Each structure stands twice: as structure tokens, then as C-alpha cells.
């Protein structure tokens, strides 16, 4: 992937808010700790300067709220390697879709439009934007027993309909992409399924050859997870990458895995940075946070 001014854009400086760089994919968190206001203004700024921007968002807080209001108790399962995750049964999946593609996406599109961005909301189901096999069976550990549990609605995007995004970008729209994705149950039949928004953003960034900015509630990846002064600023060599993966803990592990997937699938660079600062996206493109390339 190359574009006019690629070399200049890669060092972050003069083109960070200009229109000559690769597209920017921004992952906005869905947790309450992340305020989208700064990011929305920044997207408006970038778009006004001619930069193509695609926003991908999560919305776990909104999903939790709706499940709670509906009296649906989420079942959390543990995988054999000890990772805990929500089991997305049919009822949970329905609430997930309502909260994520209905509420959070519409709210974000509204905020974008009010900031002067001609946003168009899309779920991963629309035009098969994010498509991959549905995972129905999962291996879990319950009471110390290994089991196969069926009926999960989840998946990982294996194909991105980047043509749909390109069409909208070419007409001046800013796509705002939300889980669910389209989970294939057979060659021709699919259903909406839960997918990790960081991973969705990585897939989109890879498909577009974009620069990915993952906004979160900390300043980036810390060498010592408890000490913000140990922020890893730049990861460009194999050794630095090994140090990064060693340092990533908890939810940051996912972000680093998503960054890796993005870079392997064609993204030009990934920056993990703080959403709760002034001009968070422009700052990230200018070198704030942890930049991985």
C-alpha cells in the first residue's frame, strides 16, 4: 500500500492532521471511562482537512446496562487457558445488537453529524462489512470440568468489505462501524454475532491499509503496568515488540493482539493512546501514546 506522501506521513509530523496520509481508523471504546467528545471533534478536524476517517466503536457499558434493565443475567465462562468471557446466547445477542447497533451507533452518528461530520452508521452485518465464521461451540471449564458449550454467538472477522467503506469515503461520508459482525453458519447463511471491537477495528485498518488509532482510558502501554512513567513510546524492532507483548497485561493484551493483527493484515501503523486528552486522535497521529509499526 502506498499513497502520496507516505514517507512524510510515516514520521507523524506535518501531515498528521492533513489530507495526504493514509486513511485513519479510530477505535473508540465503549466503556464509560472513555468520553467520545474529544474524539468526535478531532474526527471533524481531520475530515475537514481531507483525511479519510473510519470510526469503529464498542459499547460494552451500554450492552451491560440493557442486559441489566432487561433482567438478563449474563453467563460468564472460563476458557481452558483461564480467560473469562461472556457467553452470548440468543437472548444476549439480541440485546447486544439493540444496544450496540441501535443505541451506541446512532448516538455516535448523531454526535458526529452535530460536529459537522457526515457520518453513516454501519454494523458489520451491513453489506457483509465484517464477515467470518460464527463460533457456536466453545470449550469452557466449569467446576473443574472441560466442556463443549454450544449456542454461542461470536466470531472473528475474516473478510472486510472495504469496497463499501471506499464508496462511502469517496462520497465524503464518514463510516461509523459497530459490532455485531455477520457470522456465517454455512456457505450461504449467516447471523449477527458478537465480535471484539478492537479486533474489528484492526481488520478494517488492515483492509484499508490505514493507520489505526486505538483510543482507551490510559496513555498507552506501560513497561510497568502500574507506572505511567514507563510508557512505551515506540515499537519498531523485534526486540521492542517482544518487550511490548511482555508488558501488556489484562485488557491491554487484547489491544496489543489487535495491533498485531492490524499490522499483519496491512495497517501502516497502530497507536494506542488516551481518549481523555485534548485532540486525542491528532495527538496520537503526532506521536502521543504507544506507536507500533
Amino acid at each position, binding site marked *: 500500500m502506498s499513497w502520496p506522501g507516505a514517507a512524510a506521513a510515516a514520521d507523524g509530523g506535518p501531515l498528521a492532521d492533513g489530507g495526504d496520509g493514509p486513511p485513519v481508523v479510530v477505535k473508540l471504546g465503549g466503556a464509560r471511562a472513555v468520553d467520545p467528545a474529544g474524539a468526535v471533534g478531532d474526527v471533524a478536524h481531520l475530515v475537514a482537512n481531507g483525511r479519510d476517517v473510519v470510526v469503529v466503536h464498542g459499547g460494552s457499558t451500554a450492552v451491560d446496562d440493557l442486559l441489566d434493565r432487561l433482567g438478563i443475567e449474563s453467563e460468564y465462562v472460563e476458557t481452558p487457558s483461564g*480467560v473469562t468471557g461472556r457467553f452470548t446466547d440468543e437472548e444476549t445477542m439480541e440485546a447486544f445488537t439493540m444496544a450496540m447497533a441501535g443505541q451506541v451507533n446512532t448516538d455516535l452518528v448523531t454526535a458526529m453529524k452535530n460536529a459537522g461530520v457526515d457520518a453513516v452508521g454501519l454494523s458489520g452485518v451491513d453489506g457483509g462489512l465484517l464477515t467470518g465464521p460464527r463460533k457456536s461451540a466453545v470449550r469452557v471449564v466449569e467446576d473443574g470440568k472441560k*466442556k463443549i458449550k454450544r449456542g454461542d454467538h461470536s466470531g472473528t472477522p475474516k473478510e472486510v468489505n472495504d469496497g463499501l467503506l471506499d464508496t462511502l469515503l469517496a462520497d465524503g461520508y464518514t463510516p461509523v462501524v459497530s459490532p455485531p459482525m455477520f457470522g456465517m453458519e454455512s456457505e450461504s447463511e449467516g447471523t449477527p454475532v458478537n465480535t471484539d471491537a478492537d479486533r474489528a477495528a484492526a481488520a478494517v485498518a488492515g483492509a484499508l491499509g490505514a493507520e489505526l488509532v486505538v483510543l482507551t482510558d490510559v496513555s498507552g502501554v506501560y513497561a510497568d503496568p502500574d507506572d505511567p512513567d514507563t510508557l512505551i513510546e515506540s515499537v519498531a524492532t523485534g526486540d521492542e515488540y517482544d518487550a511490548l507483548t511482555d508488558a501488556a497485561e489484562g485488557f491491554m493484551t487484547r489491544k496489543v493482539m489487535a495491533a498485531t493483527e492490524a499490522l499483519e493484515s496491512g495497517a501502516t501503523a497502530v497507536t494506542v493512546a488516551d481518549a481523555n486528552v485534548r485532540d486525542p486522535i491528532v495527538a496520537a497521529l503526532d506521536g502521543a501514546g504507544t506507536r507500533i509499526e
Partner: protein
Amino acid sequence: MTEAECVECGGTVALHDDLEIGEIVDCETCGAELEVVDVSPPVLDRAPELEEDWGE
């Protein structure tokens, strides 16, 4: 204590009593991972390989 036949090697797999559908047991003869697809009488099938994912 009941038992069932391994679908991979035909060997006998010893099963504990409070067996549940979906449970995975190992064949001690061939090492295969077997899923309990029925409990009375117990029926075993080869457990699917599943990529572990990191969820939502």
C-alpha cells in the same frame, strides 16, 4: 462407574457417575479428546477442535 467405547481407537473409556452432556473426557488408550453427546447410556464422539478466542 460406567464406561463407553472410544470412537477413535475402540478402547474402553471409564466414566465417572455425574457425567454431563458436553463434557470432555480423555481416552486413556489413544489420548483422544472425546465429547459426551449422550449420558444414558453414555455416548462419546470426537470433541471438536476449537480455536480459543478472546471474546467481545
